[in-house]
């Protein structure tokens, strides 16, 4: 308690002392002491499983600490549930927006009133929309939504995020936690988000930002706190704790071995060879006249803003959405997929951008990894559990899933490890074409590097054709051998990796061209070593 009083000054909005949390035998958080101050943006950095989310859950009443105390305005408080935390001025914007799709934007923004008001209070949609408009104007978002009485079901990921943020701000919080708010946003959308954050800082709200995109984090933050394995390992202003040092702190000693791993060089692609996937003149929902060639051993990155039609192109080709016209050839054979299952049967694996729609949360790693290939472990529709688990273990080890065994429930894994399991599942059927939509969203730096190395090996050594979508410039430039840029449903650029590609991608994603060129130079030097 002595530590608590000395650390809390007048400017501390929220402070925690010796905070710890264990889930069974796993200690997710160990004796963390830190504080978030009014009028400051604090970045909370760390890999998946470092304890950031646990810390947020303890501060917002979602979980109860095993040890330690949480103090708000210097006063120790118990937060038995999220409602109590909200009442004390703590708001959280979750990574996955939690919206009621059947309600309007305005209703979602003021959803908390459903809990606060008496059940008999009148529901006045018009007044609610007016208030919502006023609130959005306050955070200079008045132009974000044309119609606040629209249902949330049709909103894009970025728009849902904005609704979630507006909802958090409706409660006029003192402390705002943003958990990976920009992981699904493009550069332009991120800038809009950061505009809101700056505004909040001026209004002396304590903002806590969790993100894996360090470049963006450093633009906006005043102070940085780095966590690793449930402990705080570093803290300082952005000046005292530069990006490189933060990365080193996040990864610990393990980064060294990671960078030492040599990666397979890109293959020479013979443009005359029959491509694994050839699409000609494809048109569908939100895209038209798309031509694509992807060869064996090639990694093709598709860059484009959310809403540019990039996901729709993939869905159209895979048969998840209807294709109005055009032809598709797979290894030279004309095909037309009516359902996703058709595409899977033809040797295409697909990982969707939202992990929540891909993981069987009630089951273990083995179940998740083998769900597509059970027929292989037996005959006549029955299978051997032993062979299944052995296969799962082997594949999980190959992609480097960190878990005791494949009988571990998938819920117990961090996001990055879950993503690895999904990758292993996609590879289990030995596909000839792997399609990844935002393959490393919400995945920490180290896991990202591991997955890049893995994907590159699969393509360049084993000859898999890889097609991925990303809105992260770094990812496109780092991973792709060839880059396609999508704008307004058309492929407007299709060029090989190189400085020119960097500029094109940068302009497509609305990033600064200098950054791209600098990035490319860095990468070239890295490869020269």
């Amino acid at each position, binding site marked *: 308690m002595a530590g608590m009083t000395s650390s809390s000054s007048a400017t501390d909005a929220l402070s925690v002392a010796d905070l710890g949390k264990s889930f069974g035998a796993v200690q997710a958080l160990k004796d963390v002491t830190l504080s978030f101050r009014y009028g400051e943006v604090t970045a909370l950095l760390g890999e998946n499983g470092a304890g950031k989310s646990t810390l947020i859950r303890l501060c917002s009443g979602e979980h109860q600490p095993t040890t330690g105390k949480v103090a708000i305005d210097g006063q120790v408080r118990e937060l038995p549930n999220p409602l109590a935390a909200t009442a004390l001025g703590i708001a959280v914007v979750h990574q996955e927006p939690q919206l009621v799709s059947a309600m309007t934007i305005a209703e979602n923004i003021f959803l908390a009133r459903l809990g606060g008001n008496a059940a008999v209070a009148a529901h006045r949609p018009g007044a609610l929309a007016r208030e919502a408009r006023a609130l959005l104007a306050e955070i200079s978002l008045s132009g974000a939504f044309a119609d606040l009485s629209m249902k949330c079901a049709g909103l894009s990921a970025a728009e849902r995020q904005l609704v979630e943020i507006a909802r958090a701000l409706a409660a006029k919080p003192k402390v705002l936690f943003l958990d990976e708010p920009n992981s699904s946003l493009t550069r332009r959308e991120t800038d809009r988000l950061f505009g809101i954050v700056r505004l909040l800082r001026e209004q002396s709200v304590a903002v806590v930002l969790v993100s894996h995109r360090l470049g963006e984090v450093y633009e906006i933050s005043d102070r940085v706190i780095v966590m690793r394995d449930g402990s705080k390992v570093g803290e300082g202003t952005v000046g005292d704790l530069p990006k490189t040092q933060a990365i080193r702190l996040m990864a610990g000693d393990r980064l060294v071995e990671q960078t030492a791993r040599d990666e397979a060089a890109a293959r020479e692609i013979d443009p005359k060879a029959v491509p694994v996937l050839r699409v000609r003149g494809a048109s569908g929902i939100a895209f038209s006249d798309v031509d694509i060639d992807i060869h064996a051993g090639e990694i093709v990155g598709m860059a484009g803003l959310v809403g540019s039609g990039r996901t729709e192109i993939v869905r159209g080709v895979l048969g998840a959405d209807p294709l109005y016209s055009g032809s598709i050839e797979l290894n030279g054979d004309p095909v037309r997929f009516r359902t996703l299952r058709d595409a899977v049967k033809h040797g295409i694996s697909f990982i969707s951008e939202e992990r929540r729609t*891909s993981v069987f949360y009630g089951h273990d790693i083995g179940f998740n990894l083998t769900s597509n290939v059970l027929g292989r472990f037996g005959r006549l529709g029955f299978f051997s559990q032993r062979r299944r688990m052995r296969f799962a273990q082997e594949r999980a080890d190959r992609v480097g899933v960190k878990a005791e065994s494949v009988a571990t429930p998938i819920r117990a894994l961090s996001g990055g490890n879950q993503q690895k399991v999904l990758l292993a599942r996609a590879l289990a059927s030995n596909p000839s074409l792997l399609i990844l939509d935002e393959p490393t969203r919400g995945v920490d730096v180290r896991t990202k590097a591991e997955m890049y190395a893995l994907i590159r090996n699969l393509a360049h050594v084993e000859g898999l054709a890889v097609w991925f979508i990303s809105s992260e410039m770094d990812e496109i430039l780092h991973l792709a051998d060839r880059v396609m840029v999508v704008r307004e449903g058309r492929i407007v650029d299709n060029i090989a990796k190189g400085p020119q590609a960097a500029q094109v991608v940068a302009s497509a994603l609305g990033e600064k061209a200098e950054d791209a060129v600098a990035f490319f130079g860095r990468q070239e030097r890295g490869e020269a070593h």
Partner: protein
Amino acid sequence: MSVAGVRNLPFLKGQELGLAAVVIVLSIAFSFFNPHFLTTDNFRNILVAVAVVGIMAIGQCFVIIAKEIDLSVGSVMGLSGLCGAYAMSAGLHPALGVLVALAVGAGCGLISGLIVVYGKVNSFIVTLGMLSVARGLTYVLSGGLPILIDPRVMFIGQGEVLGIPVQVLIFFGLVVLGQIVLKRSVLGQRVVAVGDNDEAARLSGIPMNSTRLAVFVFSGLAAAVAGLVYTAQVSVAEAQAGTGLELDVIAAVVIGGASLSGGRGSIIGAMLGAYLLGALRNAFILLELSPFLQQMSVGLVIVLAALFDQFRQGAFQHSVLAIRLRRLFGR
């Protein structure tokens, strides 16, 4: 075999063991009040009494794991039993009569399934409709009069093999078959995957439509088998056979640890659930307690089982009460 090895067997999981323990403890407790309760004869009586519900619970278990529900089982049981008897009374060979009954059950399941899958109507509504339609059809076909069945099929409900009643053998056989299909067949795991996260199942290329159709056909088939067993047991096919049994069937599955939110459940559990319900009914008769109390206790057991399941899933470990209690005991 190590402890972990035993746990990996398809038939022994904590949840089933726990339920089995409850059954055993209750049986011993009842035997203090009436020593007759724990006799082989009574055990056999209970099993004979629960076979019909138990057989339907096997099919229902698949449906519930796939995150659907089949309310029509009682009616389909009545309809298929009656159709079988009708076909035999019209001069068909008993074996063909049995096939007719099975076909009617599977057909009803298929129709429900097709409407659920292709009409995209909630299965609660579809099977609620089927419950009424099948029952109505049963009355239309029979004209409300019972139909005597061919004596050659009566052994299904009245015969014995090695001293074990045939319907109990059928019940156990189907339990073993069902558990193997659920845990060790591709189809069974597809059912689990569809129930756990249908979007993930679709994205990974699992045939959603045929999987969901299959569970309804399973349920219809199980209802038909139950209908045959029941008809053979009472020697006549009555129009009202199976009325209201759907609730017992769903209760048995839920007591057995299946989750109505899909993805989780066990055939062995459903069997134990059915047995527990039967044992309670039996005990109330042997202990000469009011039948109204019996109905209440059955209801309590259903809700307690669901509550206990939530507890086992860790739903309350973060609740304020749990935390206060832990603090109280210095943890």
